[in-house]
């Protein structure tokens, strides 16, 4: 079956890109100590993440590029926001550093997986999807000052476990046969 060509300039990718617009507002709120506004902006960033998938289905513009762009945007937005809250003392620095190191490891493993397959692709990890959502909530816990130590120190444990599983799947297990589009 022939897979339809989808332009990179489509509504779903526009929604994904718009998430970056929440970051300057988020930094402004954190710098001024406006916890509620910071929570609101990171909430909007998270909601836009859910909206882009919906828009992609509505306009039938799903693509491998869109999936990669979405994953990269998740990493950049949440990674940046985590650094901002840690920098301002709203979150403990060590678990944030661990989370970013694990995130970079995940990115490197995905790049290696794409090299093994021989084309640009994004390994579908049901567990990592949930961990990424947890990352979004982490920032909310920091801005809302909600059980910050508890949530932040549990995060690297969960993410480390998922990375061990996904690392085996991406780097060691046989490459799955291509499925029809």
């Amino acid at each position, binding site marked *: 079956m022939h897979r339809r060509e989808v332009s990179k300039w489509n509504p779903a990718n526009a929604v994904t890109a718009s998430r970056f617009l929440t970051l300057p507002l988020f930094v402004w709120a954190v710098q001024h100590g406006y916890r509620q*506004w910071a*929570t609101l902006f990171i909430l909007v960033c998270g909601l836009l993440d859910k909206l882009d998938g919906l828009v992609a289905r509505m306009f039938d513009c799903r693509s491998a590029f869109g999936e990669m762009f979405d994953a990269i945007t998740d990493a950049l937005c949440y990674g940046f926001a985590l650094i901002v809250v840690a920098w301002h003392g709203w979150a403990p620095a060590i678990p944030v550093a661990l989370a970013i190191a694990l995130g970079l490891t995940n990115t490197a493993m995905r790049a290696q997986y794409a090299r093994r397959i021989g084309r640009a692709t994004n390994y*579908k990890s049901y*567990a990592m999807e949930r961990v990424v959502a947890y990352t979004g909530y982490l920032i909310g*816990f920091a801005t809302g000052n909600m059980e910050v130590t508890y949530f932040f120190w549990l995060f690297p444990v969960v993410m480390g476990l998922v990375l061990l599983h996904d690392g085996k799947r991406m780097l060691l297990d046989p490459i*799955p046969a291509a499925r029809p589009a």
Partner: protein
Amino acid sequence: MNVISDTQFEWFLTLAVGLLAGVWLVYDAINLIRTAGADGQDPVIRDKRFGYVIGMVIGVIGLVGVLRFRGML
């Protein structure tokens, strides 16, 4: 510069996280049960099961966090 009062904000966080964590736990538990009859040798099925278990763990972490936040644990 607040949008709502501190008490309202605390309750908003409690309800938002509590509801989300609870729904997440139930949703992934149902997903996990649905894979019960599937072929356990299929790597995709194993990935799904692992993902659903992680989702349930995160749901429990969220619920425990809410209880701690409200001083119940």
